[in-house]
């Protein structure tokens, strides 16, 4: 017959298990970035190639060939990613400086949830130089928002961007993805995103949005950091529904107070 364990023994075992799991969890390196033992201080395509092989190739393939069908890579983590030949300096600069890459899980949205830049500036420059050398592709855009027109920018933004990003750039949702807010995003990154079309966002080429129109859009987006709220209190610039709710939250108590003042209740 089986001996009955006392509850104290069971509890102790459970504690041991939990402790063991915690030790294993903390033993994993958090960022998981692989670096060469002696890292040069100046950016170079050579350093980029090493960093790429250690940190990018498990998803983007050898020399940027891409991996189409998800397959287990290091630590049985599924790896799959688009090819990087011909993306130029544009895409790696955007994804690395936004902190969208490396991606922990290929099914995650490279976006708002995980903005952490794990590479130093030297490392980013090196990887960008390496990826750009894999095939001819677009360079990093250099928008000049000061030359753009705010009015034209708003019209353009309303026509092409505001559906997802909301007219004051506060972000939102589309089915299947989160749409990031656009505040505190640099002019270069805004221009890069327009030309790349990251994740589910459409891509806008120079024939659809010329460089001068892009300057206007960037100027408008930058202006949403400090929008002039003509109506007064902006309530987060989230639109009419929160505004209506706040109105009700103010009007409701006022109505209740006036009801109490108008009527009288006799205590017995």
């Amino acid at each position: 017959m089986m001996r009955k364990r006392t509850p104290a023994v069971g509890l102790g075992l459970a504690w041991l298990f939990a402790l063991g799991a915690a030790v294993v969890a903390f033993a994993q390196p958090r960022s998981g970035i692989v670096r060469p033992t002696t890292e040069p201080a100046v950016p170079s395509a050579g350093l980029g190639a090493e960093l790429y092989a250690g940190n990018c190739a498990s998803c983007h393939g050898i020399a940027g060939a891409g991996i189409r069908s998800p397959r287990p890579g290091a630590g049985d983590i599924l790896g799959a990613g688009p090819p990087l030949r011909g993306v130029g300096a544009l895409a790696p600069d955007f994804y690395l400086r936004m902190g969208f890459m490396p991606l922990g899980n290929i099914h995650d949205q490279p976006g708002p949830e995980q903005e952490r830049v794990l590479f130093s500036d030297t490392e980013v420059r090196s990887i960008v130089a390496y990826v750009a050398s894999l095939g001819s592709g677009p360079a990093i855009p250099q928008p000049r928002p000061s030359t753009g027109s705010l009015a034209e920018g708003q019209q353009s933004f309303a026509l092409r961007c505001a559906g997802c990003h909301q007219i004051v750039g506060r972000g939102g949702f589309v089915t299947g993805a989160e749409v990031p807010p656009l505040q505190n995003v640099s002019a270069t990154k805004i221009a890069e995103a327009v030309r790349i079309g990251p994740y589910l966002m459409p891509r806008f080429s120079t024939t659809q949005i010329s460089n001068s129109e892009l300057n206007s859009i960037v100027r408008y987006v930058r202006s949403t950091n400090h929008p002039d709220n003509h109506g007064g209190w902006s309530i987060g610039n989230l639109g009419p529904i929160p505004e209506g709710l706040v109105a009700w939250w103010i009007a409701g108590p006022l109505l209740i107070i006036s009801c109490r003042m108008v009527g009288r209740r006799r205590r017995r």
Partner: protein
Amino acid sequence: MKAWQWLVALLAALLGRLRRGARDTDAAASDSESAERPRIVPAGSPERKAENVVLMLLAIATVFALGFVVTYAEFAPSALPNELLGICLGMCCLFIGVALTVMSKRLVVTEELEDDYPQANPEQQQEIAEIVHESGSRITRKRLLLGTGAATGGALGLAALTPALSVGPIWDTRPLDQTPWRRGTRLVDVHGRAISAADIEQQTFYTAFPEGADPELIGSSLVVIRLDPAKLRLPAERLGWAPDGIVAYSKICTHAGCAVALYRKPLFAVVEANNALVCPCHYSTFDPFTGGTVIYGPAGRPLPQLPLMVDALGGLRAAGNFSARVGPSWWAVRNKPT
């Protein structure tokens, strides 16, 4: 047999009415007697001043309610001043409220009952009826007050009903069926420039309008996208509608009529959601590959598709009218558009 029963019922009803009438005259008689009976509620002196104030307040409320109607009639639907409409309605309600407050405080004699709520006790119930009857005794111009109150209520009701005039068309729904698109109509962009097929790139979307027509019409705006022709799964009867994979759909959501302003496309289709047109109001999601079928959200029918063709100079033109009626759904929506 049946007629006989009806006759009995009618007689019984008549008899009942007669007897009730007799009881009413009894009550009237006892009422005149009760003139000598002691009042429960103190009589109170009539206050003509307070009555005047109430009449004034109600008149102002009526003016505000009518102001709402006039404002609504004066301005074009697109230029309605919301603040003015809100002020009119709000002030009307406020003045009605103040009038009622003045009335209850100054005109109606109040008697506080400190007992429990009376049970079915005929004596006490009669007492309450008497209190209610007597509490109006300070009012000298009952008819005038009632009339003014009715006028104010009527004006407020009128103001509340006025916006319903904008709903429609009620009987003649033909304008809803008509769109400016005909075979050969050229597609132009928001600046009125003609769009050529070569301009349309993959991975992005374009907004287009019919050349020479009012872009504000519900049947005007289009969303145009280029898809991989190999992936198109259009219904059999729409096979020629997408030259080189270019498809055009109405930009008006079939659920609540918002602009379908969101277009999502995967950068890396292996792990990302597929192409879709999404309405920002309630996230109805339409599949552009299969003819605008609903894949998510509250929309009840597909986005209407416009057949396209490319003319000799490479320009994009409509090859006919929409596959279905444009805009939010209503009872006759499944009929063919004209």
